[in-house]
């Protein structure tokens, strides 16, 4: 068996999400190769070669892959992936964008968002917003899989000494072009990787009021997330949405502030180790999953908490 892992990166550094995918690959067993496709991505390849458990790093350095356009990248991965038993990527917006294309080009079904490896062909994955866990078995000749990062420990960033090999022709489908991007800039930890997450919901009232959450987050060294209602209302940008159709987080501590606890929100945070809920409605469903619930007005409780931690 041999497994191809698609590296997640920004051409400058390897994203930690890839480390969890490498762990999932190791749980399947066999050689683990990592594909770094990008433009000017040599430093990423160096980093990937250090990751514990990686046998070989394949580098496809070409302008066609600079922005991870799925039309181009899928052609490359399909070409390289034919010799592998499994092709894995993070269940990130990049992985979700490109991997189903690869599966279709290989004429196989894809298994999305696995949370456990039972054997080389059997996996667990959440369905129905995490209200059920399915065990599925695949008979596909190449198993194409996306991996939920929070469900696997991260492989060590060092300890490996993989060979680095340049591969792949330039595939430019010529049908799509990158126009631009607006990336959120923040000094706070990344949501998916943070040990503590403080999230705000509709109860925050407006975007300015999120300042009181930022103060608490900075005191705790936490990332800040939000419910869909807070994003839809324009309080905060979309990349902060936690939930079934947003980001999945599983920190040591999750603090839900002014969030009612809809199933779609719980799907994104209920694997957190400790959950705190601050809500003025004692009937709010969030209290059913909270280890510590505080029935209070958030505008009083949060500043007080910031002062006391």
């Amino acid at each position: 068996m041999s497994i191809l892992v698609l590296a997640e990166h920004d051409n400058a550094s390897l994203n930690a999400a890839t480390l969890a995918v490498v762990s999932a690959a190791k749980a399947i067993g066999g050689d683990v190769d990592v594909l770094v496709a990008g433009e000017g991505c040599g430093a990423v390849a160096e980093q990937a070669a250090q990751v514990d458990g990686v046998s070989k790093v394949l580098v496809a350095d070409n302008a066609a892959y600079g922005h991870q356009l799925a039309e181009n990248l899928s052609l490359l991965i399909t070409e390289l992936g034919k010799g592998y038993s499994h092709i894995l990527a993070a269940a990130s917006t990049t992985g979700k964008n490109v991997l189903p294309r690869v599966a279709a080009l290989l004429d196989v079904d894809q298994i999305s968002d696995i949370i456990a490896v039972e054997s080389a062909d059997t996996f667990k994955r959440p369905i129905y917003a995490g209200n059920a866990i399915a065990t599925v078995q695949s008979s596909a000749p190449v198993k194409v899989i996306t991996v939920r990062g929070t469900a696997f420990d991260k492989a060590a960033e060092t300890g490996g000494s993989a060979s680095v090999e340049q591969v792949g022709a330039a595939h430019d489908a010529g049908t799509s072009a990158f126009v631009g991007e607006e990336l959120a800039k923040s000094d706070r930890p990344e949501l998916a990787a943070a040990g503590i997450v403080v999230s705000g919901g509709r109860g925050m009232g407006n975007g300015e009021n999120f300042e009181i959450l930022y103060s608490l987050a900075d005191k705790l060294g936490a990332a800040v997330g939000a419910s869909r209602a807070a994003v839809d209302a324009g309080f905060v940008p979309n990349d902060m949405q936690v939930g079934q159709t947003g980001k999945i987080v599983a920190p040591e501590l999750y603090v839900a502030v002014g969030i009612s606890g809809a199933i779609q929100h719980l799907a994104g945070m209920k694997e957190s180790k400790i959950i705190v809920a601050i809500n003025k409605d004692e009937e709010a469903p969030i209290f059913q999953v909270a280890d510590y619930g505080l029935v209070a007005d958030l505008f009083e409780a949060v500043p007080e908490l910031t002062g006391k931690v």
Partner: protein
Amino acid sequence: MKVLVAVKRVIDYNVKVRVKSDNTDVDLTNVKMAINPFCEIAVEEAVRLKEQGVASEIVVVSMGPKACQEQIRTALALGADRGIQVETEDKLDSLAVAKLLKAVYDEEKPDLVILGKQAIDSDNNQTGQMFAALTGLPQGTFASEVKVADGKVSVTREIDGGLQTVALNLPAVVTTDLRLNEPRYASLPNIMKAKRKPLDVKTPADLGVEVASSVTLLKVEAPAERSAGIKVGSVDELVEKLKNEAKVI
């Protein structure tokens, strides 16, 4: 411009699904079903394109048992012009749906195909991308803005780091995210009118598509329940618990 929209019949998003006691699947008997919320957004976007004069015809397609005609009728009531049901009792995986959709696409030759980004039952997030690969079309997934101009479609995508904009040659595939639009409600007269709009029924055999899957569902379990926590009486008590009991701060 002709727009093709794929809609899926799924459990209503307000319903919390239960696992069957024999762990073979979830229990959908007598559960309220609805159009997948992301598909509703897809229909709405097509209708807006028509209202702007960009789209001339909207065809909506759903694959599944006869009951999914209800969701096609919902889409027709929201403003789609005609419907196609691909009738099958088989459980369809995303690849099979993508193949069926390609067969419909080859017959209809639309300029734009809009799907939801994700079905809220399987949580797959695959079909649009697979369909795009099978047809060789470009894709704008997780769209929060769609603009058609000069033979291209510009799609702003919700990505993990923020927003990304891509320009796609037409024909193209778009999958919708939550912020793309807020779907309207169907008015009673439009619901009545929808009953008279054309709805074709085809089978996978008519379309020459095999719907077999390489994935077997072995077991479905309820997730581990979180044990009920406690209510604390004050911020001081909360801080004390977090420090000394949970030891997370």
